[in-house]
């Protein structure tokens, strides 16, 4: 049988009993070990006999130690070598792959990253790593990196100097800005940037004069952020990976955590040993499903009918939490009307899941509380993504699981800093801290930045464009390709800057290369050339620049894990080759554009080792602290974060709270919201909306963000449902200077605070006084205390309803559950829904198989970085598709052979067939991390010499089809159609 790893034509399948048979090298990547790597510094700290004694001591640990064993010794030793006369240092940083936030101790000797040690003290990962985390030291080699600035000349990438690059690119961007306005440029930012870099990127592009910017969150959890925030306040994971240890039941739907967030499973599997029940609902029998008690196979794109199917049983059996619904939830009756339409027969017809299984999972969640839910891209990347996630929120509200330890919606984000980049970074529709784009928001931020609002406005083409949401990254190609009269800005896009994102993660690849061809200028700023370099070189002869950025291991900064904990990463090594940190590159361009003074008005600029100007990261974080009141990014000063990183061992693994020590009472990483000034010492919020705790202990309630009443019905929480110890034990609106005065609390402010708080609310008072008085003095929540909204009346489907995917294998159901109406102007672009669905309604006759995509544990994102790491690349050497034996045999395709996957857009991907029951007949699964092949051809010649990834393969998104979420423009990647053809 073909096993996934090491799968290759030139490799023999290991025979039973010879499971470790030698693996012939496909590519010898000879690599010298760093000079002096083992010069005895770490060695000889202890002889073997002493070690055995230590081992025995460790065995005496308590119950937790035996379950999450600290059976390893080593943290003490690591600390011992922190400083050494021979130039060995230990730098503490965070893995740069997924959002779990695993700590890494990097051992650096004379500037070379020689070893990587596990950080047993980290309450998040306890030293554990997946394949990616255990291989991050390879970043210190970086053989396949983009090494210096390059320019496409006559179809070949040629080395140029940084000066030439900044001059030529800067001149071209300024010329485009002059000729066509700033909105003719598009800036793709990054979830791999630190908080500080992402924040500066938002500022940088704003000062260039456009909202045309975005980052990975658009195509990862934008529907979650919008859907969840509109339900109850904040669009983020409510609890934490650690808190899942308190769960009694967990439902994973559209999440393959065992591959995408492996270390999260440390906590879940531990919970399971303590009796937690686990269910997985997915079109594939994933590795996560292999660990579950219950697995149900769902037809891709039918999440809402399944969730409503569960709620049908919950309501029918009276398992809902009536008191909770009454006190804290608005509009559940309307939801119930829709739910009760989903009788078990209908649910089975649409989802493929029989009644007994739906009932079993519903009962598991209802009778084993607190129960939690986990979702990822399987829920979000659909045209109905925003409704999928709201249906999940509603499920948890009905069960009374939100604001409860062990419950909540554990939404696993994707990248190491996608949460942070969403919170404070380059979003086309908001300023840092989700402040929106209205004049008041701009004025708030201009105040923080220390720049004149009128000046910023003058950078934009008009105030209208300044307040208009930009194009999303999922659609930049249409900003190029769409007819000019159809787009809601003056010019089409003429220049695109890919600053830390892969193009192969966006859909409609065939159209993307056409858009790349039409651009005047395409710039890649990235540690790797990325698929952008190869795809553009395939289409054009010039007009492309590649600039080497360094990774997070080569700079400092904070990053926000999925659970909202913020961790500080130290610089491990100096930037490799000619690469530079992203914020240094931004500063160089700001200088070129003539706004470097405004860019760093309140931020110290220091010189790096090569004499480049570098904005100081600590100062940038302090500026974030001074502005992001809305989401409590204000209390996490660099000093507090650094203290946490040094005292990880003082935090409890389950609650994340420090007991004693210098961080006493804090939650690890000060998970946002950490309100008020750093001096107020808010401990951070481990679980959102938890009324069982005082607000100064991380407690809270649902946010009053949608007015105080709707259609004559109060939206505020009922009496008695406020957070513990609040002076107002009732629902109340958000706080501003007026409410403070009415309540007689105004005089609790100091005179200095009063000056800044006058005329302001809790979000715009830059003294922090309103938050201090409301929370510390009166125990209330600054954002008010309201009900969660089961009905989100400002969305196209206020109550989530099923809509068949754009490309559905069921034309009969398209009739019954069609997409909504087309939108003429949506994020500046016309967007098709129903007309396209009608047009392709019968296309399943030609393309009968559902095509879906997902992650592999060895790779991440577009995969350019991880496919360039030989330790990972060796484990996954070829692009493949999982195909059921029936579909394979029908197409005459055999296991391990090449086949074509063809899609309705003339997409054609040549890849290996992995014939497996992991997918059902009628579904094909493709991993999305590959690039570097195009319709059967290796693109090696289009990469800069020596900088192509080791493993290249066909990108699934070459063949993905049109389809976008009706609120956020999330792309549809999880359900489209294809056919398989023998190669």
């Amino acid at each position, binding site marked *: 049988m073909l096993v996934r790893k090491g799968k290759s034509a030139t490799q023999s399948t290991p025979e039973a009993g010879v*499971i*470790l048979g030698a693996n012939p090298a496909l590519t010898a990547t000879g690599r010298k070990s760093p000079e002096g790597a*083992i010069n005895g510094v770490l060695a000889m700290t202890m002889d073997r006999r002493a070690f055995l004694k230590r081992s*025995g001591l460790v*065995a005496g640990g308590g119950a937790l130690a*035996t379950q999450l064993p600290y059976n390893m010794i080593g943290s003490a*030793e690591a600390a011992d070598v922190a400083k050494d006369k021979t130039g060995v240092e230990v730098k503490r940083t965070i893995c740069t792959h997924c959002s779990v936030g695993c700590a890494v101790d990097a051992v650096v000797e004379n500037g070379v990253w020689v070893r990587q040690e596990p950080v047993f003290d980290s309450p998040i990962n306890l030293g*554990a790593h997946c394949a990616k985390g255990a291989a991050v030291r390879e970043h210190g080699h970086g053989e396949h990196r983009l090494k210096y600035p390059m320019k496409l000349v006559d179809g070949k990438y040629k080395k140029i100097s940084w000066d030439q690059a900044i001059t030529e690119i800067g001149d071209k961007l300024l010329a485009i800005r002059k000729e066509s306005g700033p909105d003719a440029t598009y800036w793709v930012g990054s979830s791999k940037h630190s908080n500080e870099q992402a924040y500066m990127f938002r500022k940088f592009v704003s000062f260039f004069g456009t909202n045309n910017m975005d980052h990975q969150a658009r195509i990862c959890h934008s529907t979650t952020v919008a859907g969840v925030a509109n339900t109850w306040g904040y669009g983020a994971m409510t609890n934490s990976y650690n808190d899942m240890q308190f769960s009694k039941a967990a439902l994973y739907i559209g999440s393959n955590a065992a591959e995408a967030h492996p270390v999260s499973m440390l906590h879940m599997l531990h919970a399971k040993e303590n009796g937690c029940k686990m269910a997985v609902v997915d079109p594939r029998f994933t590795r996560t499903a292999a660990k579950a008690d219950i697995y149900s196979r769902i037809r891709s794109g039918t999440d809402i009918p399944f969730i409503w199917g569960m709620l049908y049983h919950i309501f029918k059996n009276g398992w809902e939490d009536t008191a909770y619904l009454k006190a804290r939830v608005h509009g559940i009756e309307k939801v119930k009307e829709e739910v009760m339409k989903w009788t078990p027969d209908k649910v089975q017809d649409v989802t493929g899941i029989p009644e007994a299984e739906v009932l079993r999972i519903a009962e598991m969640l209802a009778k084993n509380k607190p129960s939690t839910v986990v979702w990822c891209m399987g829920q979000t990347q659909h045209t109905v993504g925003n409704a999928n996630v709201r249906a999940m929120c509603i499920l948890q509200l009905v069960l009374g699981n939100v604001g409860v330890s062990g419950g909540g919606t554990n939404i696993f984000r994707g990248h190491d800093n996608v949460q942070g980049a969403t919170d404070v970074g380059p979003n086309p529709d908001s300023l840092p801290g989700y402040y929106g784009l209205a004049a008041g928001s701009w004025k708030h931020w201009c105040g923080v930045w220390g720049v004149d609002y009128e000046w910023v406005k003058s950078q934009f083409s008009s105030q209208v464009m300044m307040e208009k949401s930009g194009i999303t990254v999922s659609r930049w190609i249409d900003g190029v390709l769409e007819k000019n009269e159809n787009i809601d800005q003056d010019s089409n896009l003429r220049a695109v800057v890919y600053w830390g994102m892969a193009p192969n993660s966006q859909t409609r690849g065939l159209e993307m290369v056409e858009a790349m061809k039409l651009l005047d200028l395409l710039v890649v700023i990235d540690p790797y050339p990325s698929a952008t370099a190869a795809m553009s070189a395939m289409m054009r002869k010039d007009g492309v620049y590649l600039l080497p950025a360094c990774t997070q291991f080569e700079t400092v900064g904070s990053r926000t894990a999925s659970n909202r904990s913020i961790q500080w990463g130290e610089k491990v090594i100096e930037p490799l080759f000619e690469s530079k940190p992203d914020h240094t590159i931004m500063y160089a361009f700001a200088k070129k554009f003539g706004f470097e003074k405004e860019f760093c008005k309140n931020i110290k600029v220091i010189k790096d080792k090569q004499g480049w100007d570098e904005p100081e990261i600590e100062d940038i974080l302090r500026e974030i602290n001074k502005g992001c009141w809305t989401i409590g990014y204000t209390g996490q000063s660099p000093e507090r974060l650094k203290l946490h990183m040094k005292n990880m061992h003082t935090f409890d693994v389950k609650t994340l709270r420090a007991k004693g020590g210098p961080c006493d009472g804090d939650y690890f990483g000060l998970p946002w919201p950490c309100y008020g000034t750093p001096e107020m010492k808010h401990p951070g919020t481990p679980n959102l909306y938890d009324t069982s705790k005082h607000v100064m202990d991380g407690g809270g309630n649902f946010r009053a963000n949608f007015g105080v009443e709707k259609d004559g019905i109060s939206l505020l929480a009922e009496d008695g449902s406020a957070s513990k110890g609040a002076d107002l034990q009732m629902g109340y609106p958000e706080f501003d200077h007026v409410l403070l005065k009415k309540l007689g609390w105004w005089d609790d402010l100091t005179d200095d605070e009063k000056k800044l708080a006058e005329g302001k609310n809790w979000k715009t008072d830059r003294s922090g006084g309103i938050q201090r008085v409301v929370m510390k003095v009166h125990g209330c929540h600054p954002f008010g205390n309201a009900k969660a909204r089961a009905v989100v009346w400002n969305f196209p489907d206020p109550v989530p309803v099923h809509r068949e995917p754009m490309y559905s294998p069921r034309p009969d159901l398209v009739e019954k559950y069609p997409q909504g109406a087309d939108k003429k102007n949506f994020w500046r672009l016309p967007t098709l829904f129903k007309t396209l669905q009608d047009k392709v309604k019968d296309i399943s006759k030609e393309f009968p198989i559902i095509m879906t995509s997902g992650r592999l544990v060895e790779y991440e994102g577009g995969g350019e970085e991880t496919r360039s790491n030989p330790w990972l690349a060796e484990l996954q050497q070829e692009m493949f598709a999982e195909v059921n034996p029936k579909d394979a045999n029908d197409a005459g395709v055999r296991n391990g052979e090449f086949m074509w996957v063809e899609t309705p857009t003339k997409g054609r991907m040549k890849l290996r067939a992995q014939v497996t029951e992991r997918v059902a007949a009628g579904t094909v699964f493709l991993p999305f991390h590959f690039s570097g092949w195009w319709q059967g051809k290796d693109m090696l010649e289009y990469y800069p010499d020596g900088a192509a990834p080791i493993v290249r393969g066909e990108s699934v998104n070459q063949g993905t089809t049109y389809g976008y979420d009706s609120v956020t423009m999330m792309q549809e990647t999880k359900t489209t159609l294809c056919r398989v053809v023998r190669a």
Partner: protein
Amino acid sequence: MARMKFLCDAERCIECNGCVTACKNEHELPWGVNRRRVVTINDGVPGEKSISVSCMHCSDAPCMAVCPTDCFYKTEEGVVLHNKDACIGCGYCFFACPFGAPQFPSGPAAFGARGKMDKCTFCAGGPEENGSKAEFENYGRNRISEGKLPACAEMCATKALLAGDAPVISDIFRDRALRRGKAGDAAWGWTTAYGKPEQAAPAPAAKEGAK
């Protein structure tokens, strides 16, 4: 005297390959050399289970018994090591090993020169001086002499792979098994060896066929 052992908890192993890359990272292993592998049975169907396998550091090691140059030796802690200077690369140990641990890579330098055998050292190096350059080049790092356990187990994503003094890791595993209420059944290989708890006898033939 303590005895070093690996134990992989199949209920926890998620086939993430963290152990594999941790090993590569720690010992600077070249492409093609894998001292550790994750093996999956029933891939993609209910019953899917994975375990991470390397040299098991047997108490009565067959490799040791058959080696014509007697290049193997055992440390006080029960770690099976070998001397690459004495190894002639004949592959007899490969025959003898029930787990396929010995490898004969064709890679560069110490890992492939003259066809010498390479395998997991339990991060305990080789006959050269602890922590010396020569030891590192031939066998990789010697974590044991630094008071650390093997990198693979220390970094395991779910603490499935346990390494250390046998009584210590068996205590950890026993505690988990008791909590799961599955006694020894959760241990990979248990049913093959002893049958399911409720069954009188195992059905080895059927098990074989199932592969």
